[in-house]
Structure formats: C-alpha cells, structure tokens
C-alpha cells in the first residue's frame, strides 16, 4: 500500500481511506479496541497530522535532521497477522525479554510471565483496571506540544507522535507498587524487513508504581523500515527507573522517536540513550513534583553522510527537582551529530538544580557537530549550568599510544572508547552495542564477533 504518495494534506477522508481505514480493516481483535478507544481524540490527531505533515527544518527542533527521505518513500503498513517470528541467534534473549515485532507486543516469544511485579497489558485492558491513566497518556496533539518562552504553544512538534498514536494503540508495561526488579527487563524491537519499506509505529507506555524499582534496556533491530516510535514513562512517588535505550542495528532504516517521561515526588530516572545515524530522538522529561530527579546521558554517533539528532528538554515543575544532561557526540566521514538540550525551570520550582554538558569529537574534516544548550529559567532560587565543547583526536595522545606499539586505528578506537566511557555506560551491556558500532566505524577487528 502506498501511503504518503497518495495522501493529500487536508484530505482527511483520503487519509482514512488509504491510511487508517485500510489499517483498521486488517486487524481483527484490535478492531473493537480502536473503536472503543474513546480516550484517544483520533479526529483531532488526524486533523493535526494532516495539517502539520512530517516536520521539516523550518521547525527549530527538527532543523538538524533531514526528513525529505520520509516524504519521498512509499512506506507500507506491516501485515498484522501473527506470523511466526524467528529471533536471530545473535540477539541475547534473557529471562525478562519483551519482544515487539513490527511495533506490536508479541506475547508468544516474550518471556516475562515469571517475573513478579512485572505486568504487560494492552492499553484498553489497563485503562479498565486503572481509569486514571486514561487522562494521563497521549491522546491529543496538545499533550507534548512545545511550550515556547513566548507563551505560545507549538503543536507542530507533535505531528509524528499523532501519526504513531493513530497507528498503534500501545502496550502498557507496569511495575507493580513496591516491586523491586533487579534483573534488567529487555525490550527488544524487531523490525526486520527484506522486501518492502515499512512504517513501524511502536507505542510503549511504562508505568512504575509507587516505591517500585526497575531496570529496562530497550534495543531496536531494524532493516528497511521507518520506525516512528512513541514511549511514555510514568514514575509514581518514590519510583526508581534506569532506562537504557539504544539502536542496536539501523540497516537501511530511519528512526524518529519521541520519549516522554513524567516524574512524581522523589522519583528518580536514570536515562541512557545511544542514538545512531539516521535517528532522531525527541526526549521530554517533566519533573512534576518535589524532589523528582533525572539523570540523562547519551552517546550520539553518525557516519557517512548521515545525521544523528537528539532534542532533549527537561521541565522542572516541582520544588527541589534535579536534572543532569551529559552527552558525547561522535561524527565521522561527512556526517553530522547534534544535540539540543533545553532546560526549563518553571515558576514555583524553587531550589532546583539543572545542568547540561556536551562534548563533541569530530573525526574527519568534513564531519560536523552541533550543540545547543538552552536555559529558560522562570524562577529565582535555582542553580543551572551548561557547557559544550568540540574537538578532534589529540595528535599527542595518538602519538603516545602509537609509540607504545598500538596501531593508529586501534589507538583512535581506544581514545574514542575512553571519550565515550566518561559518561558511565560501562556497567551496561549497552557497551557491547556501542563499541560494536564504533568498531564498524573504524573497521577494527571482526565487528560480528
């Protein structure tokens, strides 16, 4: 099915016909849910997407990521029938592995049943049990619109979120109240397609109930797809979550993702991001209540002529809230990496502290990197700081290592590894993925080992 080529802006009916109507007609069990998805203002979302279309560089938050490719490609919606899925042996499957195939939760190959305190629901099921969350999750284009300093809300930034929400009703992963799950929970997104270019719309809602603790690692393996993802994370009082999200493989694919986190009293989020070439991550963290805190660290890499872009906004709404953003950017060939880190401290968020830092390493003359820290401080008693630096591989360091017998390429790899490890990814298996991709950069050893 050809989607965007035939879709004319403002023609809602045609979109329904080519887009959603076809989609809806293909599903069986979910059909009823969609009809009953009254919490979702689908008319408003559809109208919004028709009006705003796919964002382009006229929107500040998207000016470092080209989207022309998205408009030119004839994306198809994946078949929704449950096909037998074979998981590649290279993908590590642990006890707590939740598989999302083409954006949809696959209970047959997932292994989460035995983990106490971990539950997976469809949104429909979850709202029946927890009606209060119906009001909280994304349902209309105003939910995550950009709150400009001018006071004018900008809904353009949510066009792709609207598209996602229209195509996927979402899956809720809940950590029960008081549950402490020490083993990492692995979310594995599989969107490997050999024949056609698919539009995949994963929508994952993670709810950590009061006093719960959990560690999540989300890995995406994709080929020939456009992943337009939406994730929402809700941390209730005293909840503690470590969430690592990274692109394991991005073979001929593009990713545009929106990750939105809402934190209540004394909750704590430790977010780690690995954003690769052809990926755009839009992160919004709302520290809504007193003493909520978020630490966000990320590695942004790109190669060839591609772009890798992260927009990260932390909004301090509660008193004594804390946030820290730390980014490492690595550009090679003719690529571009970019990070736009915005800190907004709203009125009444007294005694809050926020920081942003980024370091860019540029590996070739044609590569570039862009870092834009922004502070919007509307309260007096706060501490905020920001800093950005850019540089190349230090030739003196390189010579020192070479003079000890280490080959130039290995020395560069080691220096890059040291540069990236400053932000503490070492303890996670993310290291395996990050380093593997960097080895591919430098053509070092056998990256498939």
């Amino acid at each position, binding site marked *: 099915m050809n989607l965007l080529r035939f879709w004319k802006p403002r023609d809602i009916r045609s979109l329904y016909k080519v887009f959603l109507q076809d989609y809806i007609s293909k599903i069986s069990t979910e059909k009823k849910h969609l009809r009953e998805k009254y919490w979702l203002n689908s008319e408003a979302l559809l109208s919004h997407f028709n009006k705003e279309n796919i964002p382009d560089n006229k929107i500040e938050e998207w000016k470092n990521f080209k989207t022309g490719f998205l408009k030119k490609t004839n994306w198809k919606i994946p078949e929704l029938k449950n096909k037998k899925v074979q998981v590649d042996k290279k993908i590590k499957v642990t006890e707590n592995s939740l598989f999302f195939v083409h954006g949809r939760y696959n209970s047959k190959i997932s292994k989460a049943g035995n983990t106490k305190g971990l539950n997976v629901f469809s949104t429909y099921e979850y709202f029946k049990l927890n009606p209060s969350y119906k009001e909280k999750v994304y349902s209309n284009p105003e939910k995550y619109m950009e709150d400009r300093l001018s006071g004018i809300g900008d809904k353009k930034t949510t066009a792709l979120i609207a598209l996602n929400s229209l195509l996927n009703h979402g899956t809720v992963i809940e950590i029960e109240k008081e549950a402490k799950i020490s083993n990492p929970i692995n979310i594995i997104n599989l969107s490997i397609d050999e024949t056609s270019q698919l539009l995949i719309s994963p929508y994952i809602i993670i709810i950590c109930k009061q006093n719960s603790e959990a560690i999540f690692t989300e890995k995406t393996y994709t080929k020939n797809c456009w992943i337009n993802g939406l994730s929402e994370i809700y941390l209730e009082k005293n909840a503690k979550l470590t969430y690592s999200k990274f692109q394991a493989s991005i073979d001929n694919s593009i990713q545009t993702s929106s990750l939105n986190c809402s934190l209540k009293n004394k909750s704590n989020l430790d977010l780690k991001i690995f954003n690769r070439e052809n990926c755009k991550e839009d992160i919004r963290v709302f520290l809504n209540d007193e003493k909520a805190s978020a630490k966000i660290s990320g590695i942004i890499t790109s190669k060839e002529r591609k772009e890798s872009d992260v927009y990260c906004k932390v909004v301090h709404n509660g008193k004594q809230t804390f946030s820290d953003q730390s980014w490492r950017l690595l550009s090679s060939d003719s690529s571009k990496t970019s990070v736009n880190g915005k800190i907004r401290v709203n009125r009444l968020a007294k005694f809050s502290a926020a920081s942003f830092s980024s370091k860019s390493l540029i590996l070739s003359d044609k590569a570039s990197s862009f870092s834009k820290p922004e502070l919007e401080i509307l309260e007096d008693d706060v501490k905020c700081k920001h800093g950005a630096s850019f540089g190349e591989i*230090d*030739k*003196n*360091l390189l*010579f*020192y*290592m*070479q*003079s*000890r*017998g*280490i*080959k*130039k390429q*290995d*020395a560069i790899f*080691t*220096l890059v*590894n*040291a*540069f*990236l*490890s*400053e932000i503490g990814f070492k303890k996670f298996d993310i290291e395996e993925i990050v380093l593997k991709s960097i080895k591919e950069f430098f053509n070092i050893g056998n990256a498939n080992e």
Partner: protein
Amino acid sequence: MLKITNLSVSVDKKKIINNLSLEVPTGKKVAIMGPNGSGKSTLSNVIAGKGGYEINEGEILYNNNDILKLEPEERAASGIYLAFQYPVEIPGIANSSFLRTAINSIRKYNGKKELDTRAFLEECKEICEKLNIDKSFLSRDLNFGFSGGEKKKNEIFHMLMIKPTLCILDEIDSGLDIDALKVISEGITHYSNKDNSMLIITHYQRLLDYVKPDQVHIFNEGKIIESGNYELVKILEAKGYKEFV
C-alpha cells in the same frame, strides 16, 4: 644499533636538527645534554616517528634498517621505546589495560601469541615492587591525576614491561625528588644490558651519576658540539653550557 647520518630536520621551515650524525652502539648508554631549545626532544620524537617534522636529508638506521618511513607503532614493535618528557593523560583507559594492549600489539606484530593475563599481572606486580609503585597504579586511568614523579615512574614501568632494545629517555629525571630519581635510575641500570641500548637526554648530572653513560654528547642548535665520556658531564656541571656553545 642506532645510526643517524647527516640528519637535518625542520619545522615550519625552521631548521631544528642540523646535519646530525650520531651512533648508539648495542649494549651502550649514550647521553645527550644540551641547553633548552637545542633540539634534543625533536631528535627523540623524530626517532620515535612523530609527525609534523620535515626530514630534509639524512637517514636513521636501526639495526641496519631505515626507519624513517615506518609508522611509530612499527618502530615500537621493532624495539624502539620513547619515555616522554611530558607523558600524556588519558582518562577512561586503565593503565594496566593500556599496557597489555600495547604489549599484545607488539607481540602480534612480531608473530607472537598474546600474553597470558595472569602472567602479565604477576609481572606487573613484580615490577611495581621494584619501582616502589603502589599496585593501585595499575587500575588508575593512564597518567590521569598522576603527580609529575608518578608519570615518570610510569614511563619506566612501561619500559620494563615492554622490554625494548632501544630506550630513548627524554628528560626522565625532570621533576623527580631524590628518592624517585634513585628508584628510576636503579630501574634503568637494572634493565640495561649488553643486548639493549639507551639514549638518555638530560640536563643534569645527577641521573648520569647513577646510570653512568658510556658516551656523552653535548648538543646545541641541532648538532653535536662536543663528545666525550662521563668526565665530560663533570666538566659541564662545573662550567655550564657557556663554555661549549
């Protein structure tokens, strides 16, 4: 072992090494002394293969092979070791891990198997004790947060682990207290034997009092202006460079 013939080197068209000829025979310790800016460090960098220098003429033969076209790592693998005047700091890389990578890289180049981890660590500990270095040296990031003396000790520690055949020590004694100087000098003396050679660049007599060089050259404006044996060091200490330049 090392034979430099008519070597001229310039940086940004400024001549730093000027028609230099120098020989470091196998099993010998050769000292180079000279005032600041005389080209001593340039010479050590050029031998080790650092970029940014223009070789105008001359050759450097190491074991009868011309090394000027070799990469620094190839020179290191063939047995050349440079102890830096200002060792660099690299946060994020553990000292031991760096050293093991270096040793294995050299071994691989020479067609040898990688070093057994246990044997490597045991040897590390043994040499740490000899150099009066705390074992925590091994797990600390490479030279990161090290004092000046610790960095110099680390250079000698690396040298003793890598076991090169030509050791170029570029002002290894600068910034060392008396005790550290003694430890380092003992390390150098202990390592020196009939099969390896030392090119020791220094300003001071005190290191040479311990190490006792076989030959001493006084360097100025990129060339040797005086040569002799250990007695020359004493004369230099007494009269200063003014007597020679």
